[in-house]
């Protein structure tokens, strides 16, 4: 499945990325992507794919052009910089690479000469994990609170929903400033991750809760729910068996919408010193660099992370769709 195909490289980032995410090649800032060739300039076919080297552009300072004189063959399963696979097993094997001191930059380099492809793959680890877990947390809270509120209605509903409004109205930016001020200066990576997930997830529950409440409100008036109630079904049974399943559609759609949104929320939090800092990559920070005019106008390959994210998020959407269809076909 497409989704799995996209997630495996991210999970096994160290293996798929040819370089470490923080390795700076200071002679190659904003180097364009290396194109993979099979046929060289003389029309000769090579069974082993190769890339051309780069040289300084004689016309523009700081720009690079392809050096057709240097063909660099591509090797597979090469030994390179060490990393820990899935964060546990030390390894040096990389899926592909070129022999030192040449470099292959499938998606070009950023302003420090770091390989964008490696950063994209590594960045996905933290962004996707944070996005998915945070979306799950906020939907869980949302479903629970929205479900109770919609199901019981009346005073409970009023209390919970006004509480949600209050939550939405809070000046989060300032609260986050305050949270950051109470934390120590340097926060370890895994703590940052937990913090990110907690902050994003907890802030986000109020909106899905409203939606789910709406669905629950209409669901509990349906005839078969009323019938089940008439047969003496308990509240818990009704909620679990009849009401909540009807909200799955909303929950899945919300999930697909929230994950991309939360991947971007990480940018704001990083600005406040609550996100993953340099040199750790995240998709948010890769996208944030696109806000600058010079990047937009001069270095088209900086768009590649954004372009790659489109099929990924679409895949989420399709998956959610498929799941929904699947659930509908299962009799309640």
């Amino acid at each position, binding site marked *: 499945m497409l989704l799995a195909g996209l997630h495996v490289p991210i999970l096994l980032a160290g293996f798929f990325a040819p370089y470490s995410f923080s390795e*700076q090649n200071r002679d190659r800032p904003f180097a364009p992507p290396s194109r993979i060739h099979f046929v060289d300039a003389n029309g000769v076919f090579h069974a082993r794919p190769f890339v051309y080297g780069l040289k300084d552009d004689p016309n523009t300072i*700081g720009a690079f052009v392809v050096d057709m004189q240097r063909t660099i063959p591509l090797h597979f399963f090469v030994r390179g910089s060490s990393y820990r696979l899935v964060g546990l097993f030390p390894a040096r094997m990389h899926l592909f690479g070129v022999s030192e001191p040449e470099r292959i930059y499938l998606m070009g380099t950023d302003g*420090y000469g770091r390989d964008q492809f490696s950063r994209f793959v590594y960045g996905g680890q933290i962004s996707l994990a944070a996005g998915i877990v945070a979306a799950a947390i906020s939907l869980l809270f949302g479903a629970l609170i929205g479900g109770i509120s919609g199901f019981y209605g009346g005073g409970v509903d009023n209390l919970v929903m006004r509480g949600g409004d209050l939550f939405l109205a809070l000046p989060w930016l300032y609260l986050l400033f305050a949270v*950051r001020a109470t934390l120590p*200066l340097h926060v370890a990576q895994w703590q940052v991750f937990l913090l990110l997930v907690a902050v994003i997830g907890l802030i986000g529950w109020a909106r899905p809760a409203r939606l789910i409440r709406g669905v629950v409100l209409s669901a509990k008036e349906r005839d078969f729910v009323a019938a089940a109630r008439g047969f003496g079904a308990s509240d818990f049974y009704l909620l679990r068996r009849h009401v909540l399943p009807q909200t799955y559609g909303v929950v899945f759609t919300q999930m697909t919408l929230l994950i991309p949104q939360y991947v971007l929320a990480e940018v704001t939090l*990083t600005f*406040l010193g609550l996100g993953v800092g340099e*040199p750790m990559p995240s998709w948010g920070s890769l996208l944030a660099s696109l806000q600058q005019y*010079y990047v937009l106008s*001069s270095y088209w390959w900086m768009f590649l992370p954004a372009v790659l994210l489109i099929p990924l998020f679409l895949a989420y959407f399709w998956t959610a769709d498929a799941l929904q269809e699947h659930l509908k076909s299962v009799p309640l």
Partner: protein
Amino acid sequence: MGATGQYLSIACVFAALGALSVTAASRSRGAEDVLVTNDLLGHRGGTITIALRSEPKTINPVLATDTSSLGVIYCMGADLIHINRETQRTEPALAKSWNMSHDGRTYTLQLRRGIRFSDGQPFDADDVIFSFKVYLDEDTHSPQRDLLVVGGKPISVEKVDDYTVRFGLPQPYAAAERLFDGFPILPKHLLEASYKSGSITQAWSVSTPPGQFAGLGPFRLKEYVPGERIVLERNPYYWKRDSAGNQLPYVDGLTFLFVPSEDAQVIRFLSGETDILSRFSAENFAALERQQSAKGYRTYDLGPGLEYNFLFFNLNDLSSVNLPEIAKKQVWFRDLRFREAVSAAIDRDAIVRLIFQGRAAPLTSQVTPGNKLWVDSALPPALHSPDRARELLKSAGFSWKSDGSLVDQRGNAVEFSILTSSSNAQRAKMATIIQDDLNKLGMNVHVVSLDFGATVDRLLNTFDYEAAISGLADGDADPNTEMNVWLSTGGMHIWHINESHPATPWETELDRLMNEQLVTLNYAKRKQLYDRVQQIVAQQLPMICLVSPDILVGAKDRVGNFHPANLDPYVLWNIDSIYVN
């Protein structure tokens, strides 16, 4: 002299019209002390549009602190003695001449006669006395007041006659005439009433009706559209003439658009909405340079300005605050060899190349090459040698474990964080490069970027940081503006704030040198003293100076007499001579 000729011919025209008006016109105009500029001759007409990064908060010179307000006020006001931003030296403005007493404590200024405010009312010594009374009054809380306090006492102002004023300084003060730049003279006839009623701080907001405002600058207020623009028109009474006797300014109007981000300003400039683009980043420079001939504008790299960026370690006395972790690490930070090693490990050229696309200068000390009169050019460039850094660390008792990580004598891993403000993208990028340089030495360095307010709070109040990257930029090139940085009691003595007495022998020497240059009137002697200050900074590394970015500006080809300078206000400083083709 050309100016007088012009007035005679004007008078002749009047003579043909009627005898009565001739006497009136020639008397008032003949007595006018105009200033004649040497710029290229331009021609009258047209308007100039410039973007401001933010909306000016006020047009009241007594209150302004933000760059946007100061820029607008600069175009509408005039000071007694002005700093030429190109030569960085003082030149006559409203004072046509001045002299200093032998002890350096009294300045007598001769004012221009017969000149008028932009509302047509005459200017004389009473306006000067009134202005300085307002600036010096503690109740008005003018942010500039501190500049007029010398050796703890305010300067005194006294009227000698209608066109002569005398300023008394409590002690000899080097380059005192530079103080007058940035104090626009206020019209007594318009502001005295509000000053007396104690409401001068409410006077002259941006929404003031143009009729209630007057200044001595080349432009006066015409219109303010909240959130959009502020429009100025030429001051018909301005006191400068070009060498052909034409009254300045050349352009009829000046419009400031409020465009909040640099990228948006670049786009507006490219689309032709603005004529001049002031200060933009090196990345945008490359993009703009490529299109300049096609789009009819020019970009200018003026070389480094006065801003210096630096890395520094927390050397504050932490005994009164509870920060044991940081206090432990201060053992490293206080060791000169450690600071030298860090300085030697930093690849300043990479910072210049990667962050500024080569449009910045690596620094050894706090004085940038852009500060023509004061930079100690004999100082050798900062050394970049990771090998030397390792030697220094070894000699200071540090060693490396088998995995390459650095440990101190007691076996503690060398780990610290560098704090930067996330609102300054360039400093955050410097931190990323320095982090990589130091990690190669085996140090475990983290970059922590916080919002501006939180960063400042940690640096100046709570001292809860280990190392930080910051930058300072002065309005003026003179060493006096740096007093609060280098004196051990200074408020911006950023690596160790509020020292009760100098903590190190070299800080004692810095105190002595800075205090001595303040009262030394001879430039060559002052330069020697300040050279020594730069040497100490380069040797003792309380601040590890990094780079100074170039001042980058652009203007359309149709803008004439465009002479941008690397001192603030970079493109506006000669706005009275700028013309439009």
